C-alpha cells in the first residue's frame, strides 16, 4: 500500500515534469522502470479469462504507459449479486464494469466522475460524440462510465453477421444451384428438396433437415423469428411500427398474422417429419453436438450461439470442405419485403461500462491509463499482439497472420501468458488510424477470407457476397433513436405490472411454443396457446413499452 502511494507520488511528479516540457512524451521517452509501474485492479461483472500476472504483453504495455491492471471476472454469480457483495464487502477494485449492477455502484457513490478527465485525455474524449457522451450522464449530470464495445473508429469493418438468421448449409445451396431464397416457404422447399435427394450424408449419417433449440433462455431460436420475418430490426421484445413517422407504435410480434403463419409452417414441417423429433427436449450441448456432426441442414439461431464451437469442429473434422458451414439467409414472410436481420450501426448500450471507483488512490493515473491504451501502438499490442511474433506486415502495410500464428493465438495457455487485451477497457472496432488495417483481427477482411473453406468461398462468390452481411442482404439504414427496445424490457422488474406480464409472457411462450409446433391439431393448440398468452396481460407490457418508445422518440 505504502509503496503504491510512493510510486504514485513519484509518478505524478514525473508527469508534472513531462507536462512542463510540453506534453510530447511518446512511447520512446516514456519508458517506465519496474518500480515506477502502478498496479491497478479491475472487476468486470462478466465471465472472462484471467491472464497471468507475468503476462508478456501486459508487461510491455506497463513499461510503455507506466501502469498495469489485474483483472478479475464474474464466476458463478449474476452481475448484480456480485456487485452487491463487492459493495457490502467494502473492497472495491480501482476499475469496475458492474454490468447490470452499474446503477447500484452509482447510487452507492462509489464511482468517480469522468467529466474533468475527459477534457484532459483526448483519446477518451474521442470515443464518443458530445451527444453520445451526454447519453451517459446520470441524474446528477455527470458521466461515470463509458461503454467500450461496438464502437467503430472510421469505417465499419464487420465481416460476420453476429445476429440472428435462418441459416442453411453451403452444400444445400450448392446442390440447388445457388437459388435466390427470400421467403420462409422457399427456405423449407429448399430443405425438403435437398433432404429428399440426400437423406443421408456421405458417411451414412441421416440428415436432419431442420432443428430448433428451445433450451432455457436460448428458446429465442423458436420465439422471435416473426419479428424479422415481418421485416423489422432486432428490437428484441417488440416490433416498432413506424408507418406513421410522427407516432411510432409498439406492436406485439407474438400475435401477428405472420407469427401464426410461421408457427403453422413449423407445425406442418414437423408433421411431415422435416423437423428433428427431439427438438423440444434437447439441451444446448446436444444441439451443438448435433450441429457438429454436419447433419443439420438448417436452423434459426444467433451466430454467436453456435458458430464458434461448430465451425471449430467442422474444421477439425474436414466437414467445412464438404460444405457444412452455415450461411445466413435474409428471409421474410412474403416476397419483395426489405429485411433487417443485420444491424449495421454500432449499438450503443449506455447502461453499463468501464468506471473508476472512489477506492482508486490515484484516479488521474487511472484515466491516463485508459487514455494511453487507446494509442494506436498500444491498441495494436492489445489486439494484434507483437509484430513478428503474432502477426506480420506485408509490403502494403497490411497485417496478416500465418496459419501457425492463428493456431497459437487460439491456445488458451498462450492467451493467458501472452495476450493482454484489457477487453473490458476502452477500445475500438472499425478501421485503424493507419487507414488500412482493422482495429481488431476479427474484422480484418484478408484474415477473414483466408480462414474460409472453399465451399463457403464458392457460395459467397455465387451470390456476389464478400462477407456474411452481404450474404444476408439486409437493407442498410441507420438505427432509430429508440433502437434497441430490448434494452428497456431487459431492465424491467416485477415492480411494474408490465414487468410481471413480460416475465409471464416468456414463461407461457416457453411452455407452449414447442407444443404448438408438435401439435396434431394446429388450430386447436394455437387457440389454447393464445388463451394462455392473453391471460398474462400482455397489454400491460406493451403499454409500458409504448411509453418508453414515446420517451425515446421525443414524443410528449
Amino acid at each position, binding site marked *: 500500500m505504502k509503496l503504491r502511494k510512493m510510486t504514485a507520488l513519484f509518478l505524478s511528479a514525473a508527469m508534472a515534469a513531462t507536462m512542463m516540457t510540453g506534453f510530447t512524451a511518446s512511447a520512446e521517452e516514456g519508458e517506465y522502470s519496474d518500480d515506477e509501474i502502478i498496479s491497478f485492479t479491475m*472487476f468486470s461483472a*462478466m*465471465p*472472462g*479469462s*484471467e491472464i497471468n*500476472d507475468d503476462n508478456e504483453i501486459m508487461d510491455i504495455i506497463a513499461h510503455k504507459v507506466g501502469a498495469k491492471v489485474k483483472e478479475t*471476472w464474474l*464466476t*458463478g*454469480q449474476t452481475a448484480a*449479486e456480485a456487485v*452487491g*457483495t*463487492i459493495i*457490502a*464487502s*467494502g*473492497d472495491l*477494485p480501482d476499475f469496475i464494469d458492474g454490468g447490470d449492477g452499474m446503477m447500484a455502484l452509482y447510487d452507492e457513490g462509489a464511482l468517480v466522475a469522468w467529466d474533468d478527465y475527459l477534457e484532459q485525455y483526448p483519446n477518451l474524449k474521442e470515443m464518443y460524440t458530445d451527444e453520445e457522451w451526454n447519453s451517459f450522464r446520470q441524474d446528477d449530470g455527470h458521466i461515470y462510465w463509458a461503454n467500450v464495445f461496438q464502437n467503430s473508429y472510421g469505417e465499419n469493418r464487420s*465481416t*460476420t453477421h*453476429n445476429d440472428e438468421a435462418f441459416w442453411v448449409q453451403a452444400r444445400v445451396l450448392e446442390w440447388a444451384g445457388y437459388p435466390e431464397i427470400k421467403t420462409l416457404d422457399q427456405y423449407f422447399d429448399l430443405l425438403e428438396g435437398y433432404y429428399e435427394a440426400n437423406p443421408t450424408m456421405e458417411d451414412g449419417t441421416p440428415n436432419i433437415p431442420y432443428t430448433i433449440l428451445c433450451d432455457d433462455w436460448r428458446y429465442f431460436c423458436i420465439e422471435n423469428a416473426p419479428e424479422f420475418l415481418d421485416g423489422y430490426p432486432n428490437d428484441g421484445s417488440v416490433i416498432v411500427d413506424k408507418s406513421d413517422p410522427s407516432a411510432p407504435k409498439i406492436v406485439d410480434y407474438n400475435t401477428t398474422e405472420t407469427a401464426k403463419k410461421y408457427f403453422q409452417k413449423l407445425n406442418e414441417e414437423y408433421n411431415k417429419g422435416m423437423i428433428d423429433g427431439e427438438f423440444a427436449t434437447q439441451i444446448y*450441448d*446436444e444441439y*451443438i*453436438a448435433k450441429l*457438429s*456432426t454436419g447433419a443439420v441442414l438448417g436452423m434459426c439461431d444467433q451466430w*454467436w*450461439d453456435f458458430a*464458434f*464451437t461448430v*465451425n*471449430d*469442429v467442422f*474444421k*477439425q*473434422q474436414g466437414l*467445412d470442405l464438404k460444405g457444412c458451414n452455415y450461411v445466413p439467409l435474409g428471409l421474410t414472410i412474403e416476397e419483395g419485403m426489405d429485411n433487417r436481420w443485420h444491424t449495421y450501426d454500432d449499438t450503443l448500450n449506455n447502461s453499463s461500462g468501464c468506471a473508476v471507483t472512489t477506492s482508486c488512490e490515484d484516479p488521474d493515473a487511472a484515466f491516463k491509463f485508459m487514455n494511453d491504451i487507446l494509442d494506436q501502438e498500444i491498441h495494436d499490442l492489445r489486439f494484434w499482439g507483437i509484430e513478428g511474433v503474432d502477426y506480420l506486415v506485408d509490403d502494403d502495410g497490411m497485417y496478416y*497472420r500465418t496459419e501457425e500464428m*492463428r*493456431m497459437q*493465438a*487460439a*491456445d*488458451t*495457455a498462450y*492467451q*493467458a501468458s501472452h495476450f493482454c*487485451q484489457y*477487453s473490458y477497457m476502452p477500445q475500438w472496432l472499425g478501421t485503424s488510424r493507419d487507414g488500412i488495417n482493422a482495429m481488431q*483481427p*476479427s474484422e*480484418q477482411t484478408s*484474415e*477473414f477470407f483466408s*480462414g*474460409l*473453406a472453399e465451399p463457403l468461398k464458392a457460395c459467397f462468390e455465387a451470390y456476389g457476397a464478400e462477407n456474411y452481411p452481404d450474404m444476408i442482404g439486409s437493407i442498410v439504414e441507420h438505427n432509430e433513436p429508440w433502437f434497441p427496445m430490448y434494452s428497456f424490457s431487459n431492465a424491467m422488474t416485477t415492480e411494474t405490472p408490465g414487468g410481471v406480464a413480460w416475465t409471464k409472457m416468456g414463461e407461457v411462450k416457453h411452455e407452449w411454443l414447442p407444443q404448438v409446433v408438435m401439435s396434431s391439431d394446429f388450430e386447436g393448440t394455437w387457440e389454447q396457446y393464445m388463451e394462455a398468452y392473453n391471460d398474462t396481460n400482455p397489454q400491460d407490457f406493451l403499454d409500458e413499452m409504448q411509453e418508453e418508445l414515446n420517451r425515446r422518440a421525443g414524443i410528449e
Partner: protein
Amino acid sequence: MKRTKMKTKWPDKVFVVCNTLFMIAFVVITLYPVLNTVAISFNDGVDAVRGGIHLWPRKFVLKNYDTVLHQQNMLTGAYISVARTVIGTLLALVANALLAYIVSRKRFLFRSQLSLFWVLTMYVNGGLIPVLLVYRSLGLTNSFWVYVIPGMISAFNMLVLRTYMEGLPESLAESAQIDGAGDFKIFTRIISPLCKPVYATVALFVAVGQWNSWFDAMIYNRMKPEYTTLQYELMKLLSSVMQQSGSATNMASAGQAATVTPVSVRAAATVVTMLPIICLYPFLQRYFVTGLTIGGVKE
C-alpha cells in the same frame, strides 16, 4: 452334512448370488459416469463437442490437463486448499464432537434446549449479504480464517456424532464418573476412542466440503489472490473457457480452432479434484468399512 443345516443354507446361497449380481450392476451403473468423465478428460476438446464418447477417448490428448494444471495460482490454490482442509477438519471435528458429547449427556440440564438451538440452524439462512456483513465486522474477510471458523459447527455432523455417542453403553461413562473422572476426561479418554468410525465419517464429510468449496474464496477473499483455493481457480478457468467458446471477443479470426472446450476442461477439472480424495480415502475407509473381523461373522 446334516440335512437341517443344508436347509438353512439354501436361501443364504440364493441371497449371496443375488447380492453379488446386485453389487455388480450397481458398480457398473455408478462407475460409468466416472469413467466417462475420465475418458472425456483425455479427449481432444473440440472433438468431444460431437458427443458419443463412452469409456475410451476417441482422440487422445493431454491438453486438458495441461490447461488445468497451468492455470495461474494453481499452486497457491492447492496449498490453501490443503491447509483449509486439514485445519478446518481438525477444528470442526473437535468442536462438533465436544458439542455432541455435551448434548449426549443424559443428565445435562439444557440438553433439549441446546439441541433445538442447533437443529434450527439447519433450516434458517440469513442470506449472502447479511452473512458477509457479519464476517466483515468480525474481521474475517480478507483472511484465511473465514474458511475454517464460520462453518466449524454444523448441526448435521453434530447430530450424527450425538447419535453414535448415545448408542454407546452408558455404563462406561457411569463407572468412570464413580472413579472420579470429570466430563472432560470422560470425553477424551472414554468416549472418543470408541467413536473412531463416526469421527472418520464426520472428518470425511467436513474434509470433502472444505476441499470442494470455492464460493467463499470468491466472496470473502476476492481481492486476496494469496488466499485463493484450488476449486476457485478451477471454477474461474471453467467460466473463462465457457465464455471464450461463446463470444467473439477472444476469437481472433474466423475459422480458428480452439484447443479446449468447456466439456473437456470440466472433465479434467473434475478428475483433478477427485484424485486426491480417492488417494486419501483408503486411510479413512478402514474405520467405517470393516472386513470380516468386526462386522461380520465367521461361518
